[in-house]
């Protein structure tokens, strides 16, 4: 086995990186892969609660790096899915406790024994982000269809390319099809026009995501959730399957196309 190291990042906070990491981890593991999720947000540990594993933490990422425990001891086994593990972030330290080289070494130690290593990056463009990016083979950029998060995504895409980790893959999260239809939210095509990056998934806004995080059970486990289905599709695309994009964002319906055409003067 040679793991693919996949870093999930965004620039802006609160767009759904942790949710994406948890769900892609669960989805990839459900497909039969062995997966390790690493929470690289030192000091603001969150992936554990989203995955529902917060009660089992003994050691964390900084313990591994500083040699207080073996790598295996810090890996928490998921309660529902075989072959899914979490390495939690330290809660009481800050990002200077870890260096990009530490992360590269950690990834190299994991690489031979697993199929996927997912790294949940902290927000921002500083040390924590650099740590998460350093070992990456592939990078997912999560954005919401609104101005500030798309702007930050563009900045991050530039930094990823500068580090020769590109091209990144884009996930548009929390899209509201009804708002896109009304012309009150950027649609998938709008975001792609602006960012010029490969799309790997569109996740509709879905209340089930909140319910799932309340319960510590990633939404991809709920087979009635449209967001869960979208995350599953992303995992399948990551595995090389060709999964068609559905008309989720409904930005393509005739009436909204017509109205935009009229407004833009037939451009």
């Amino acid at each position, binding site marked *: 086995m040679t793991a693919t190291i996949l870093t999930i990042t965004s620039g802006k906070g609160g767009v759904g990186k942790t949710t994406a990491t948890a769900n892609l981890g669960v989805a990839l593991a459900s497909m039969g892969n062995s997966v390790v999720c690493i929470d690289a947000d030192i000091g603001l540990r969150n992936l554990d609660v989203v995955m529902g594993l917060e009660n089992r933490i003994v050691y964390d990422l900084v313990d591994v790096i500083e040699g207080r425990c073996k790598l295996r001891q810090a890996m928490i086994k998921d309660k529902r899915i075989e072959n899914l593990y979490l390495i939690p972030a330290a809660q009481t330290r800050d990002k200077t406790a870890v260096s990009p080289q530490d992360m590269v070494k950690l990834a190299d130690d994991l690489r031979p024994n697993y199929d996927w290593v997912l790294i949940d990056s902290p927000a921002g463009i500083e040390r924590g982000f650099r740590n998460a990016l350093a070992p990456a083979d592939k990078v997912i950029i999560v954005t919401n269809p609104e101005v500030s998060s798309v702007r930050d995504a563009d900045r991050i895409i530039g930094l990823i390319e500068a580090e020769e980790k590109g091209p990144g893959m884009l996930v548009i999260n929390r899209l509201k099809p009804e708002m896109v239809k009304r012309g009150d939210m*950027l*649609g998938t095509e*709008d975001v792609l026009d602006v960012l010029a990056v490969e799309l790997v998934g569109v996740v509709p806004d879905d209340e089930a995501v909140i319910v799932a995080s309340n319960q510590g059970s990633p939404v991809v486990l709920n087979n009635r959730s449209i967001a869960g289905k979208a995350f599953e599709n992303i995992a399948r695309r990551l595995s090389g399957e060709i999964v068609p994009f559905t008309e989720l964002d409904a930005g393509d319906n005739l009436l909204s196309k017509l109205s935009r055409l009229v407004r833009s003067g037939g451009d």
Partner: protein
Amino acid sequence: MSLIERLFSGQPSSADEAKERLQFVLIHDRADLSPGKLEALKDEIIQVISKYVDIDQKQVDISLTEDRSHQRLVADIPLASPRARRR
């Protein structure tokens, strides 16, 4: 506003506005040249060129543009009308 109302009002949707604003801000972000710096650049260009030729300063337009692979500064610098120049 409903879609139908907007269709006939000719007003841009907020999504269109968002896209335009994003495109503008990203052109400046990517070039690391803020609108304020661009304005200062324009003032200096006007000063330098005015040393050599009379230009219509109010009509000078310096803008950043972008296509798929390149960013460029485009300057449109009209000369003052011949009558004004002869003065």
